[in-house]
């Protein structure tokens, strides 16, 4: 029997969760969000998501180290990118965004786990910078399921035919028309906006599931949402013309961003204290950009900016080593 002995390093037992399990659970938890997207934006929403996923996954497959598709992270990137795009966006743009996000948000950094910026948001920020008009053109919610919104099938490099009927997002309306959307519509998601951002409650449910399974750290979203609520409530108090906390919480990409994007393990702090700081920073930035910034929405930029701070936050929030009290540092 000696021949067939297995020799591994200690510890010889391991907890159940593995990285792919975590990732695929996140994918699973996004299914309801995708369903909601289909409900609100019909086939157009699904097509945009699909295009983004294809872009991300294909790039990971052809440029990646190989065999890394199985860990599921590329799929998440594609999904979340797709969910953060407007329903009528030409598919080639969505696809390009996915490819860009994976290539320059992940692969050049060394692949899974090495990147500092959230790949999906790198992809989205690129799209927003490259095609600002297309990505801020919002087809109205609802309509028949099979209706093709916007100019989905525009050819690459060709300016999409601007859709006659476009709506505006609650944030756009607020910033540029000074008109606030009904809270009920915000909560039920019956508003213009990105494919997956409008179904706030579904997103929260998915987040709750992941938090319960400990696949995402609840501190990050909680501290983001609390901060946004607190800060905007304060500002609303000082100047009632400013939107109130509930509007802030349920409009724009905040929910999706706070629950699924700020919580990306790789690009958020590793210490719990750090996660509180991270969330606080995002919350403040979101409110500041939404109220005083030029852009109507700032979730993406807030997260990207705080991503850049993560290495610094990690440094600053290292726990005190056991027994190093009394400044007796071991070396």
């Amino acid at each position, binding site marked *: 029997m000696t021949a067939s002995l297995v020799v591994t390093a200690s510890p010889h037992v391991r907890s159940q969760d593995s990285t792919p399990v975590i990732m695929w659970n996140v994918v699973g938890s996004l299914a309801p969000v995708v369903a909601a997207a289909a409900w609100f934006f019909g086939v157009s929403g699904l097509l945009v998501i699909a295009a983004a996923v294809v872009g991300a996954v294909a790039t990971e497959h052809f440029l990646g180290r190989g065999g890394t598709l199985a860990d599921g992270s590329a799929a998440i990137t594609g999904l979340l990118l797709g969910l953060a795009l407007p329903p009528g966006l030409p598919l080639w743009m969505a696809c390009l965004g996915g490819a860009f996000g994976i290539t320059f948000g992940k692969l050049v950094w060394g692949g899974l786990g090495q990147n500092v910026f959230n790949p999906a948001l790198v992809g989205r920020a690129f799209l927003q910078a490259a095609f600002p*008009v297309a990505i*801020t*053109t919002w087809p109205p919610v609802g309509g028949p399921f099979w209706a093709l919104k916007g100019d989905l099938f525009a050819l690459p490099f060709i300016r999409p035919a601007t859709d006659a009927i476009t709506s*505006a997002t609650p944030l756009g309306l607020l910033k*540029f028309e000074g008109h606030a959307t009904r809270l009920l519509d915000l909560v039920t998601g019956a508003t213009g906006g990105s494919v997956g951002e409008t179904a706030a409650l579904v997103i929260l449910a998915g987040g709750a599931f992941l938090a319960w399974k400990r696949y995402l750290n609840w501190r990050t979203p909680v501290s983001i949402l609390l901060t946004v609520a607190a800060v905007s409530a304060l500002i609303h108090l000082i100047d009632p013309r400013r939107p109130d906390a509930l509007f802030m919480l349920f409009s724009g990409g905040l929910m999706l961003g706070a629950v699924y994007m700020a919580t990306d393990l790789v690009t958020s702090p590793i210490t719990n204290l750090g996660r509180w700081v991270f969330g606080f920073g995002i919350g403040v930035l979101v409110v500041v950009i939404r109220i005083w910034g*030029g852009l109507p929405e700032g979730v993406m930029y807030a997260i990207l900016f705080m991503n850049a701070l993560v290495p610094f936050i990690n440094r600053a929030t290292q726990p005190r080593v056991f027994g190093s009290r009394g400044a007796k540092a071991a070396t």
Partner: protein
Amino acid sequence: MTDVAPHCATGAAPQVHGKSSPAWRLLITLAIAGALSGWLVATVYNITLPAVKRHAAERLDAAVREVLRAPVRWDTLYLVHDALTRTAPAGDLDQVPKAYVGYDAAGKRLGVAITAAEPGFQELVTLMIGYDPGSGSLIGFTVLDEKETPGLGDKIERDSDFTHQFVGRTPPLTGVKGRAPATPSEVQTITGATISSRAVVRIIDHAVERWRPLLAAWDRGGTT
């Protein structure tokens, strides 16, 4: 890699080892070098100055002609302690706010061109605004300087549909998004460049607000 490169050249200027020379020699060297370069630069400056001046003048002229609908002549008013005067004050002129009053062949005043700058989406946006104090309406405007996003914010000077709407409108204006203007004081903003568009509106409103009383006062003080 060559991150090394940069920080050297000047980096080592002081602590240099090597033979030291008497102070007078250093001074002489610098003096000569300075004198030479000064002379050279001055000469070239004087040679190029006319051309540079001409270009500036042309740019101004073109702008004024555009916003005042091709006046045959125009003269400059300077704003010195809150009052307009035709006599240029001493010192550097380009900080002094100016108004350019344009006349047609018949000597009738077409309007006044004024410049104003305020933050846009990225940086300050500088406009020249043609304004008719008589009717209180706009003759037009042109962008003198702007660093907005190419292909987006810079439509405020490229997109003629946008710029033409201002002709004949009476400030204060309001920018509306996504629909045709309803009242004569409304202009439609550029999709994707709402912020820049509104910046233009804001600049024009503020400028008119500021200059209307001044021009009125000037008129009372005897129009030509």
